[in-house]
């Protein structure tokens, strides 16, 4: 029994690492611009499909797809920002619907390009088992866990210590006042989207390396990412990591101790609980109540 629970914890933590990577981009754009990018999951998925294409065309490990994914996904992210910036009124609400529409476009574009068939890596290296004492995982899992934690640490350092970090939050707070401070709002916002694109690229390659992808997955990823963002509390990067680990572990424990049919329930119940009990998330500042 202990072995079972240990393994569940371990799997949950590793899974949480990739959840964090997926959620971070969404949390960043949300925390800095008050925009929930409902197409973020599709961005991640796009990166995953690029990894697939690179792998099947070149036979190289999906890792080598990262540069290609970075270029394409970041370009897509910039186009998305461009569209968002065209919104004239009520940006918070309209961007929600706009990015939702972009998500629909991306999902269907992926469907057109890559068909509905499931794809998955054929890289044996990525899927080989790594055994640490009684704990098992695929090699890609700890690999991307480490990458995820590193990226997150870097992001955290950069956002909290850098002038840029302050600038994005200022723009979110009051555009005109930010401009009076000497901040170019468009530039800081584009940077946010590009960073979200970078994070999505890594996340996409990660999920392709140990999971199965299909066109309808994007939506699921977006929802997971949002749940984690709520758990974290707006604008908290450590919160994202903790929230993601919490979700990953809670899911793994539910599957192990109860039934996997209840897995999805866990995330949702956790989400509602945190909203009601800890309205500011685990680490966040105020702001979600009216």
């Amino acid at each position, binding site marked *: 029994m202990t072995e079972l629970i240990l393994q569940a914890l371990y799997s949950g933590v590793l899974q949480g690492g990739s959840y964090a990577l997926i959620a971070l981009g969404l949390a960043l754009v949300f925390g800095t611009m008050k925009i929930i990018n409902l197409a973020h999951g599709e961005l991640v998925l796009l990166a995953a499909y690029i990894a697939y294409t690179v792998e099947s065309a070149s036979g190289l490990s999906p890792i080598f797809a990262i540069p290609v994914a970075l270029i394409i996904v970041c370009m897509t992210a910039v186009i998305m920002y461009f569209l968002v910036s065209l919104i004239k009124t009520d940006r918070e609400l309209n961007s929600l619907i706009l990015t939702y529409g972009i998500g629909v476009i991306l999902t269907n574009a992926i469907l057109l390009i890559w068909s509905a068939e499931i794809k998955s890596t054929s890289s044996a290296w990525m899927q080989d088992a790594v055994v640490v004492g009684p704990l098992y995982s695929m090699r890609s899992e700890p690999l991307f866990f480490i990458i995820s934690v590193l990226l997150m640490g870097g992001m955290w350092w950069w956002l909290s210590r850098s002038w840029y970090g302050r600038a994005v939050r200022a723009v979110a707070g009051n555009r005109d006042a*930010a401009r009076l401070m000497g901040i170019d709002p468009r530039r800081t916002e584009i940077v946010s989207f590009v960073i979200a694109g970078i994070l999505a690229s890594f996340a996409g390659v990660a999920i392709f390396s140990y999971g199965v992808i299909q066109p309808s997955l994007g939506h699921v990823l977006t929802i997971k990412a949002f749940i984690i963002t709520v758990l974290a509390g707006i604008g908290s990067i450590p919160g994202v990591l903790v929230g993601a680990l919490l979700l990953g572990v809670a899911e793994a424990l539910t599957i192990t101790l109860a039934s996997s049919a209840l897995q999805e329930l866990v995330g949702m119940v956790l989400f509602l609980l945190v909203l009601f009990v800890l309205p500011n998330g685990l680490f966040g500042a105020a702001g979600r109540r009216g």
Partner: protein
Amino acid sequence: MIEVQGLRAGYGAINILWDVSISVRPGELTTIIGPNGAGKTTLLRAIMGLLPVSQGTIQLNDKPLSGIPTWKMPDLGVVMIPEGRMVFKDMTIEENLMLGAFTPKHRAGSRRQCDKAYDMFPRLRERRNQRAGTLSGGEAQMLAMGRGLMADPQVLIIDEPSLGLAPVVVNELFQTLGRLKAEGRTIILVEQSTHRAVGVADHVYLMQGGKVVLSQRAAEVDMEQLHELYFAH
């Protein structure tokens, strides 16, 4: 230093300013007074590039400001302290202050400037980690003032700084304005308390209904006459 010539501007289809011309000399404190809705704030916003100009020119040191985005203004040494509570609500007081020194050349000195702001408004130091959104009306006003001074601006444009401040603080504020002028800064001040504004000013403009109706050296201003003009509709 700042020359505004025949300016027309407004919000969308509504024009507010009608051929406004003012001239601000370096090192002087120029005050713009006038009743509510005269267009004072609108003029300041137009100078800062926050509003599109439909006619006329604005020049800084003989160079036109058209085409220069608002966010380049602090780099040119021009900072505006907006009216109302345009603070960053979700950020702490200290973060708000730091943003005042956002332009790269001011970043290095930001710590020192920050301490200066705290010295000026000790209340802010007590609250340095409080969210700006929860400040009282007057505290927010102090914060806006302190933040504007962070970039050590050559030209300071201030909109109704005394609004909502306790009398003691207003006294200090006007002393500060005097000191800033003495340091050689150019200041444009929009104020509702006419007496005090004219008291510190070198030059006075009176605006009404989107037009400049009086331009006079402060020393020559006859308060009686000014008030008559003020109330003549």
